[in-house]
């Protein structure tokens, strides 16, 4: 069995005294890390439509703007907002106080380019070009030794995790496994390479931890389970980023968004349930680069907008209210540039605040380090 042999390779490396934590480059002496809090950032690339995902049903202007897009049977959150019907599991979390949605939120970015907006969302800079490293990578540097392990669930390291602190990665899609014999031989040959050795060791140990079979991991629940596998171990990942794409719904939004959200809901559900008791120590952020136009366009979709909604999820969130917003309204003169949901909350401030509380860091330092633009 491949999985068993992988475990064997991983364990034999640990036993050989060459052991490294699978997630950080350094000797494995920090089994009892000073913090065992976990943080997961699920990025929604392509501008997720906050107004369709968390509908302001109480806003009188909503029907006029997007009659063709409104859900027939939304999941009620409070007297004003309702959740898209493809998110039943997240709705369940909200009912337990384990979800908090921050609506009408945006970064400092105010144009409408995906690439630049994602660069701002991920670097925490004032513009797409102002910072070269990601805020999650800088967060690694703020955590105590032994809790600095970070992991991207993607074949390349995303910008939010790019920077001088070491980050591991594993892409779950289209990855045919290496045969055990070759893996063993390469473990020997890479061991003496100072650059490639640690990368190889980490990859082998990561694969040993995954309970799911790689290669068919397009489903949300498979990804959520794999994420939990890597977050669970005592020396496992403390910070993780999961990629989701396909949110750019310029046309035929109804079906596409339902598919996207079904995937997200399954991912969050599998992550929460597979983490078991550790779900109580885990904080999840789901966020996108910007929102979409308030009105429906001519092709049953929406175009690039500004304000959107972000989700905080976690077992010990203890949220008293499922939606937090200074609601700007959707009337014509309340919209940003007459077309988009006006952002009234700062993504940067919100994230710094939550993360400093979660990891017990100074709020001022956290904001200054992660989001110096604010």
């Amino acid at each position, binding site marked *: 069995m491949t999985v068993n042999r992988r475990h064997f390779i991983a364990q034999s490396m640990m036993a050989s005294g060459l052991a490294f934590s699978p997630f950080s480059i350094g000797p494995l002496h920090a089994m009892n890390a000073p913090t065992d809090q976990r943080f997961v950032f699920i990025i929604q690339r392509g501008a997720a439509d906050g107004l369709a995902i968390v509908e302001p049903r109480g806003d009188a202007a909503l029907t006029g703007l997007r009659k063709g897009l409104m859900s027939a049977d939304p999941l009620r959150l409070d007297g004003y907002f309702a959740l898209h019907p493809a998110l039943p599991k997240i709705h369940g979390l909200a009912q337990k106080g384990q979800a908090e949605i921050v609506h009408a939120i945006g970064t400092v970015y105010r144009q409408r380019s995906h690439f630049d907006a994602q660069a701002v969302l991920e670097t925490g800079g004032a513009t797409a070009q102002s910072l070269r490293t990601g805020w999650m990578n800088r967060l690694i540097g703020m955590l105590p030794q032994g809790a600095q392990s970070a992991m991207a669930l993607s074949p390349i390291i995303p910008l939010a995790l*790019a920077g001088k602190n070491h980050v591991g990665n594993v892409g779950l899609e289209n990855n045919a496994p290496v045969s055990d014999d*070759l*893996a063993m*031989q390469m473990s020997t040959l890479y061991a003496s390479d100072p650059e490639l050795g640690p990368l*190889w060791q980490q*990859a082998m140990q990561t694969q040993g931890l995954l309970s799911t079979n790689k290669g068919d991991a397009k489903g949300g629940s498979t990804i959520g389970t794999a994420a939990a596998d890597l977050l669970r171990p005592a020396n496992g990942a403390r910070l993780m980023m999961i990629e989701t794409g396909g949110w750019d719904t310029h046309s035929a939004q109804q079906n596409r968004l339902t598919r996207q959200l079904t995937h997200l809901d399954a991912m969050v559900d599998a992550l929460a349930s597979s983490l078991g008791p550790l779900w109580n120590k885990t904080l999840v952020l789901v966020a996108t680069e910007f929102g979409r136009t308030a009105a429906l366009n001519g092709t049953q979709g929406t175009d690039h907008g500004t304000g959107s909604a972000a989700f905080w999820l976690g077992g010990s969130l203890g949220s008293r209210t499922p939606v937090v917003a200074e609601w700007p309204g959707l009337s014509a003169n309340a919209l940003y540039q007459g077309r988009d949901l006006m952002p009234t909350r700062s993504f940067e401030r919100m994230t710094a605040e939550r993360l400093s509380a979660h990891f017990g860091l100074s709020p001022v330092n956290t904001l200054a380090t992660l989001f110096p633009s604010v």
Partner: protein
Amino acid sequence: MNVQFTSYSWRNQQNKETGTKAEAHMDIKAHIAATRFGLGHAHDFDVPSASKSALLTQVQNAHSSSTASNAEALISDILSFQFSARSAAMAGEVLPPEKRAVFNQSFRQSVNDRLALSVESEAPFRERLVQFWSNHFAIDAKSLVVRALAPDYENAAIATYVGGRFADLLKSALLHPAMLIYLDQVNSIGPNSIAGQRGREARELKGKKAGLNENLAREILELHTLGVNGGYSQGDIEELARAMTGHTIAHYSRQRDAKEGSAGKPLGRAIFIPQLHEPGERRLLGQRYPDTGAGQFLGMLDALAVHPATATFLATKLARHFVADAPPAQLVKSMATAYLGSKGDLMALYAAMLDAEESWRAEPLKFKSPWDWTVSACRLISNRAHERIVAHKFVQDLGQSIWQPGSPAGFGDQFTHWASPDGLVRRVGAAERLAGRAGQDPLSADAIDALFPANMLSVQSRSVLLAAESPRSQWAIALSLPEFQRR
């Protein structure tokens, strides 16, 4: 068997003429020419010549990869496809998927063609340069139209000019339809041009901004010429954008003046439409440019091409690509000086790089990108392996989507951009799959010596390689070796 590991023409020559020490020296130099400045050893280890002049001759003589542009026909195909897709949508129908599949199939074939060209090339230094400049002037094949144009862009607009003046390469790249479309130049209209004045009222009614688009101008200064710290201001970006208005594609825009200005020109041709051009004198980096129509922008490019900041920026990028992630300052300086001294001749830039001793250090400092690794693996195993993979998918699974870097900055060119735990495992998995295509011949000790001359292979790597249980597993190990990941 088509794999011959015993005839190394360059080695045999050396054996006749020189002693052992010189031979070892030449071994390394030929090896560096083939790997650091080339695309990797060919299966017969036939390295024609390792000298600087031989490398430069490749660039001057070989025109294997440059072709005449076919952009007009490609744009015409795409526009008629998009037109029929729109018409179908309005009639509530969906076009049969084969229609779109044709474009995707053609794109995949183009990536396989690019791989074949690289694997079979006898001018590998030139191919490296084509691919380097193609990435320097990166476009992104995410949209259907740029996707269709990407191969033409590289083969016609880039490859033709890699051995000439940078100013010519710059103009050729920027005025190719792929770039004009990718960075929105086709939508840019001078606010005070005839079209701008006509459109102002209509736009104000719709609440849209006037039509100047700065995207391409910003990237020209930041990514193509001066570099991000090259000493330009937001004002310079705007002036460059204004001067550039009018440079567009015939019959591409539905704007009335653009349509009129395209009359008599073939669809898809890069042209200058005076009715879109912002009138007036411009100032760029303190220099005045009178309004000469199309020439105003071209004059700016001529000046940008020989700006000292451009020289340093290009020298740094080229040295980083070939020599080291952090190239020696002296190397960059001498390359920039040679470039400026020649008034922007790319051959002088390459010659200065090849003249410098730092460029020929035995220690390989560059980690191969997924593309470069795939090319070098296919060249080594030969046996038509490159024809039996879907190159686009193969390289994408290793973390690199050809012609789709995701940003106008192109692919990164340093260790951290390509080396990751998952990337390394995927590479070893790919090595194993390619090894299955390598045929039945094992690597002889001589072949291993040719692949890694002098002391370039560790004792351990050599012994594991020689102890492999089958030719197939030996090839998988060879392509996975730490020594095969660098150049």
